């Protein structure tokens, strides 16, 4: 699925009646099956951009081109699970057509096998995040949005989850938007990196990564990060 985003302006009025511009001239495009990784300072408007692209916020100026009927999967910053449904029931509510074998595979890949019948209140944040990922993948999306899926997880767990995301994204062609404030995550997962300015946010640099994700070794990743550092982007 191809995606073209051109948000001329997105502003909101706060409780004190002041108008704030969050996004201005925010433009990017992704080819089908590509992972776009967005890196920017916290609070710059990344989540606002994702909400607009996901179609949750219609109140903006500009246009977004995405094929109609493309199936959307999304991982919000918080897991957003229904506390009154078990892990499996949460996933099945979003993905009623997912078959059992596929779900078992997904739960196994995310290490959720033994938690299928648990309720979200019984899970740690890391586990709940994985359930949210399972839900997004279970719908077999054409278009996937990940809003800081690895934030506030410890390094080991974040690394494991990142590998799982890489595997899942690689297993089928999914156009993916990944928002992160971690350059390392972006370099390991992205096909194109977008670096964002502080508010009002816009894309200040779009950097494609030529090496396919699976072929990126540690040395390669260090080299890409060094290149980014030379461009003085990595410490934005």
């Amino acid at each position, binding site marked *: 699925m191809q995606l073209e985003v051109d948000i001329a302006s997105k502003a909101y009025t706060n409780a004190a009646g002041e108008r704030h511009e969050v996004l201005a001239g925010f433009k990017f495009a992704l080819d089908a099956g590509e992972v776009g990784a967005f890196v920017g300072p916290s609070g710059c408007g990344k989540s606002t951009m994702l909400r607009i692209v996901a*179609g949750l916020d219609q109140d903006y100026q500009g246009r977004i081109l995405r094929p109609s009927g493309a199936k959307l999967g999304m991982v919000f910053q918080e897991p957003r699970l229904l*506390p009154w449904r078990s892990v499996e029931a949460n996933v099945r509510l*979003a993905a009623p057509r997912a078959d059992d074998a596929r779900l078992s595979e997904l739960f196994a890949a995310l290490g959720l096998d033994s938690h299928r019948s648990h309720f979200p209140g019984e899970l740690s944040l890391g586990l709940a995040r994985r359930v949210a990922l399972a839900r997004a993948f279970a719908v077999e999306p054409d278009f996937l949005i990940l809003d800081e899926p690895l934030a506030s997880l410890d390094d080991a767990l974040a690394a494991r989850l990142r590998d799982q995301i890489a595997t899942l994204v690689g297993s089928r062609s999914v156009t993916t938007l990944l928002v992160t404030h971690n350059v390392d995550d972006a370099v390991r997962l992205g096909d194109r990196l977008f670096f964002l300015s502080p508010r009002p946010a816009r894309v200040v640099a779009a950097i494609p990564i030529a090496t396919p994700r699976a072929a990126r070794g540690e040395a390669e990743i260090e080299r890409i990060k060094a290149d980014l550092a030379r461009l003085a982007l990595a410490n934005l």
Partner: protein
Amino acid sequence: MLRLLSFAVFLATWWGAALLAGGQKLPTPPVVLAAIIAEAGSGALFFNLGVTLARVALAFVLAMTLGAALGYLMGRVRLANRLGDPWLILLLHLPALVVIVLAYIWAGLTEVAAIAAIAINKLPTAVVTLREGARTLDVALDEMVAVFAIPRWKAFRHVILPQLAPYLAAAARSGLSLVWKIVLVAELLGRPNGVGFEIGIAFQLFDIPLLLAYSLTFATVVLVIETALVQPIEARISRWRLRAA
């Protein structure tokens, strides 16, 4: 065990008070029991209890359904809230007696008037509770529903309704106690049968054993319905809370 003990203390207190006050004002438990058995033997007790329960059930269901729907609407749609709010405040503070008397005057001394009057008394509390519930619905979950394109009915049943469940339970709980209280007044004022009617007769004849016989059996029925029906349902809808770590 503890319940039995508390019941025994109640009986003993009653009996003691009856002996002190004299049987005229407060008959002893055996006298009341005899009245209950006599009423049960003639079938009048079961008939009147049944009639009252039927009224309670109808008025309760009517008020809950309508109240929940209106409350949900007022909580979700600002215009509905602004239109409905003055009426809600009026109904909320209108004395039950006024509603009952007016219903009988306008609709005649009929079953419809009685049930409508009881339902109208309960309606506003259900509306207020459900409106509060609808206002606290989680926008984050609405967005989740939108992103995954969960069909409207399914979202209502599995995402909205569970969030409203505690409010529904609270409305049912407070509403049921309100209905129990009002149904007897409505019967006393304008129905030819039911527990309220019988208590009215007993009052006029100063037949205290009969009065207590009906009051106590009515109280027992309420207690049984509360413990056997209302509490298990409450426990069931909140079972995921209990399991939470």
